[in-house]
């Protein structure tokens, strides 16, 4: 949902009217935002992924990107840990298993579709929005290309079309928004996965499914759903058989949603806008008064001494 001018005025009007008419509303003792109730998500079970990269192939096809540069049967692609880029909205990386004699672990990375996206918070033209369906979408029609979203994203997800001189865009996974909302389909990657490592559904259901898997197989899984609470929670979540920091996930991101990080500063802005004119006008009056006193002292001094 993007806030249009009409929505903003409507919200402001309702707030004002409610206040004036004293319509009883439920006030929270502390703000709590549970998010869009029926939003979708994807659960990625890293214990099932075999690294076939058919999800990469499907994603590129669905989004009109060229097929993955390194062919799917060429395993040398896993020699480096890749990130998403302007032509690849998802990548699968391989990590050695810390438990010796166990097979390596493959991890698919893409936009996490955060509950409170840092990119949306950062964008000065509100080009990003968290939709009711759960996908975080980008509006290229208003983007000015400042790339602050890329600076802000803790997962290093957004990519930029640096080689486009006139129409560069920020690009990333869209959770196949049109497919899931209008065509009743699964996201391309979920559909393509041959081992059902990816499960698409309501985020609340996915959390239940994940908890159940952990409960049923406590030896198979680390007791943590990555993305359940990280940076305020994400729509794309992960299960793993090894600690998450061993498979390329940052575990030091905390649970504070990113908009909270700048909220304090932004709240100080109206205070400065209001109090600074008061303060500095006072300073000006004070210094002007001191000048006047100095002037009158000078002239009275002259009068006493007489013209020199």
């Amino acid at each position, binding site marked *: 949902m993007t806030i249009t001018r009409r929505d903003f005025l409507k919200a402001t009007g309702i707030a004002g009217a409610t206040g004036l008419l004293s319509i009883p509303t439920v006030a929270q003792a502390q703000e709590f935002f549970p998010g869009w109730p029926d939003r979708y998500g994807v659960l990625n079970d890293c214990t099932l992924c075999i690294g076939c990269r058919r999800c990469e192939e499907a994603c590129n096809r669905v989004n009109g990107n060229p097929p993955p540069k390194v062919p799917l049967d060429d395993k040398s692609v896993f020699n480096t840990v890749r*990130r*998403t*880029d*302007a032509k690849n909205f998802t990548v699968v990386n391989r990590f050695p298993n810390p438990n010796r004699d166990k097979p390596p672990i493959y991890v698919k990375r893409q936009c996490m579709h955060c509950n409170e996206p*840092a990119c*949306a*918070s*950062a*964008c*000065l*033209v*509100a*080009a990003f929005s968290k939709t009711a369906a759960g996908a975080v979408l980008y509006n290229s029609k*208003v*983007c*000015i*290309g*400042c*790339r*602050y979203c*890329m*600076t*802000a994203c*803790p997962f*290093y997800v*957004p*990519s*930029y079309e*640096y*080689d*486009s*001189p*006139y*129409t*560069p865009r920020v690009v990333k996974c869209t959770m196949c928004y049109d497919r899931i909302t209008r065509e009743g389909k699964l996201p391309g990657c979920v559909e393509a996965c041959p081992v059902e490592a990816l499960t698409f559904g309501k985020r609340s259901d996915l959390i239940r499914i994940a908890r159940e898997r952990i409960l049923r197989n406590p030896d198979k899984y680390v007791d943590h759903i990555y993305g359940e609470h990280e940076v305020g929670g994400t729509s794309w979540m992960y299960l793993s058989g090894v600690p998450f920091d061993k498979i390329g996930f*940052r575990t*030091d*991101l*905390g649970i504070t949603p*990113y*908009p909270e*990080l*700048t909220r*304090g*500063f*932004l709240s100080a*802005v109206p205070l*400065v*806008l209001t109090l*600074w*004119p008061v303060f*500095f*006008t006072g*300073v*000006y009056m004070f*210094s*002007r008064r*001191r*000048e006047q006193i100095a002037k009158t002292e000078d002239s009275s001094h002259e009068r006493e001494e007489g013209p020199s």
Partner: protein
Amino acid sequence: MTVMTREQREQMAFRTWVADKLFLGMSFGDYVKKQITPFNIIAALILAVGIPVTFVRFTQGLAATTHLTDNYPWGLWIGVDVLCGVALAAGGFTLGSAVYLFGMKEYHAIVRPAVLTGFLGYFFVVVGLCFDLGRPWRLPYPMLVSYGTTSVMFLVGWHVALYLTCQFVEFCPAIFEWLGWKNFRKWAVRLTIGATVFGVILSTLHQSALGALFLLAPGKLHPLWYTSFIPVFFLVSAIIGGISMVIFESMLSHRVFSNQINHQDHNHFDKLTIGLGKAAATILFGYFCLKWVGVAHGQHWDLLNTPLGRWFLVEVIGFVLFPCLLFVWAVRRESAAWARVAAIWTVLGIILNRVNVSMVAFNWNLPDRYFPKWTEFVVTITIITVFILTFRWIVNRMPVLWEHPEYPPEYEQA
């Protein structure tokens, strides 16, 4: 006796006006001959490289002219052109408020060059920003099209735009004195106090906002630089940078434009330099303490013994504490020369801090590092050169370093 038609008289008056206002009273030929100086030749060479690079930037895009990547979306043009440019242009609001709001009339002689530095500084920051933006023609969008009110960058955009207008209004009296438009000048002077107050508000907000941008990067900016106090750090260091730049710029101006300044002004000027040095020393000392509050706030003492930790110490001790003490020493000895050295050292320290925050300590835990492409350096140097040329053009024509005999100083009319 030649009788001129009215048309001929107007033409001649226009030519005289052009010669007087634009060509320093010389004929076009003489004026061009006078432009052949060593500095101008160097500037021309810089522009000879800079203009083609600009052409490539806007026809082939950022990939052709920068080393920016998806992991490093911000590079030299943001780190230096924008962040350093804004911090060092802060002299405009600092001196403006000192003279017009706090009533420190003794600094009146340097308020106009400070405001000019501020105005041109911000203007060329916007120019630099237009090189960096993916779609610079959409620069007005956050003001006219779509409002990202959750964004600190939204504030930066608005405030820089408004502040540019403010600095322009504050500089208008000089422009109108140059043009001889007395009524416009009167109107502009009346707006000075309001523009100054507004300018202080805007400066406070956008200087700190530039620091607040990095609040969204806790995982990327090294803990010794990432602190919730970073907006305050940027604001305080901008004030320091502004004062130091005024000392530096006035030192250069008094040498380069010495023909505009009389002997008495030179002596008085040294006293002003020391006064500014006193202010810089005091604020630097406060800033030094603040930096340590920041370290304590995050409890990152153990990080001081790492390579980046040592670099932090270089910045804080070598480029904050050291210039502070140098200023103190200069003030106590009443040495304007040493105050100028301290000012240059401080300016370097501000640049170092902004470079550290945006490029060195940023993405500190990524294996790949960013280093600007040569074209990025060319653009930055070209913009600085054009800034200097513009500054010189204005100072050679408008009453910036000298008082126009027909007009009393602004403060007497406020």
